[in-house]
């Protein structure tokens, strides 16, 4: 199953949802889409707008590939479950983002070979078809939890 997520952002992401619906009509693999505030409703894929924490985590876990917008939450969850992740940045010029989006995080994650970054949705089908051949390096770093715990302990001991 290919999971598509566009997050909770107040703007829709029809460019991605429409293209993935078109691809879903051409391939045999199931496509499930979280479409958020996108008006367009897919015809060839299962879709829903928002769901519970448990359900979305289950979908990420079950997915073979994740295709998502460049939101930190979507990318973080996909990486947490070690999924091959294709990221399409929301662009202001298409009304998908309120501001000019530098997509710094997605670019940095691509530089580290942790995600595949695709700006042109017309390239999506080709990237999905050859995903097995692309090298991706899942990296996990839990240091922040340790840093915060030390910080909380320091405050606690000062009380």
């Amino acid at each position: 199953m290919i999971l598509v997520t566009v997050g909770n952002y107040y703007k829709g992401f029809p460019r991605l949802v429409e293209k993935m619906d078109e691809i879903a009509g051409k391939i045999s693999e199931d496509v499930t889409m979280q479409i958020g505030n996108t008006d367009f409703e897919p015809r060839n894929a299962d879709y829903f707008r928002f769901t519970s924490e448990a359900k979305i985590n289950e979908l990420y876990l079950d997915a073979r590939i994740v295709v998502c917008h460049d939101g930190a939450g979507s990318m973080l969850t996909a990486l947490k479950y070690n999924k091959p992740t294709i990221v399409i940045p929301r662009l202001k010029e298409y009304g998908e983002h309120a501001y000019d989006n530098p997509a710094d995080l997605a670019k940095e994650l691509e530089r580290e070979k942790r995600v595949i970054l695709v700006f042109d949705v017309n390239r999506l089908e080709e990237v999905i078809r050859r995903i097995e051949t692309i090298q991706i390096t899942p990296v996990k770093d839990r240091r922040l939890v340790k840093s915060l715990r030390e910080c909380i302990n320091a405050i606690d001991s000062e009380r």
Partner: protein
Amino acid sequence: MKIGLVCSHGGHLTEVLEIIDAFEGHDVFFISYDGLRTRELEYRKYLFKDLGKTYPRSILMLTVSAPMILGILLKEKPDVVVSTGPEIAIPVFYVAKILGIKTIFVESWCRVKELSLTGKLVYSISDFFFVQWEQLLTKCGKRARYGGGVI
């Protein structure tokens, strides 16, 4: 200790849930936005209508929300408030500062090269200020520290 976690209902919530182990053993509550995922959080929670979206509406919403946030913090009396952003952290941190509550701001994982506007606005009043990318330290003052990333 009692710890207030402050975030929106999307990606910032995902970041908070990823670091929530750091607050194990403490009494935790949430200040966030109303949404499917925040409604089912198994913690005490205070949920606002999304205050963000675009200026200038958010400035107005943040100002209007300040008295309610004061009420929440007076009732809960947390020892610390922790936020990964976004804008809801601004009124919470300023009210917390007035009440003498410690504040920890964790700049969002998505901020690789520049601080968020929220980060800039709470930087000087945060007791602890973390960034998740080492290269971002060059854009902050000495108070900021790099403590690793959320993943």
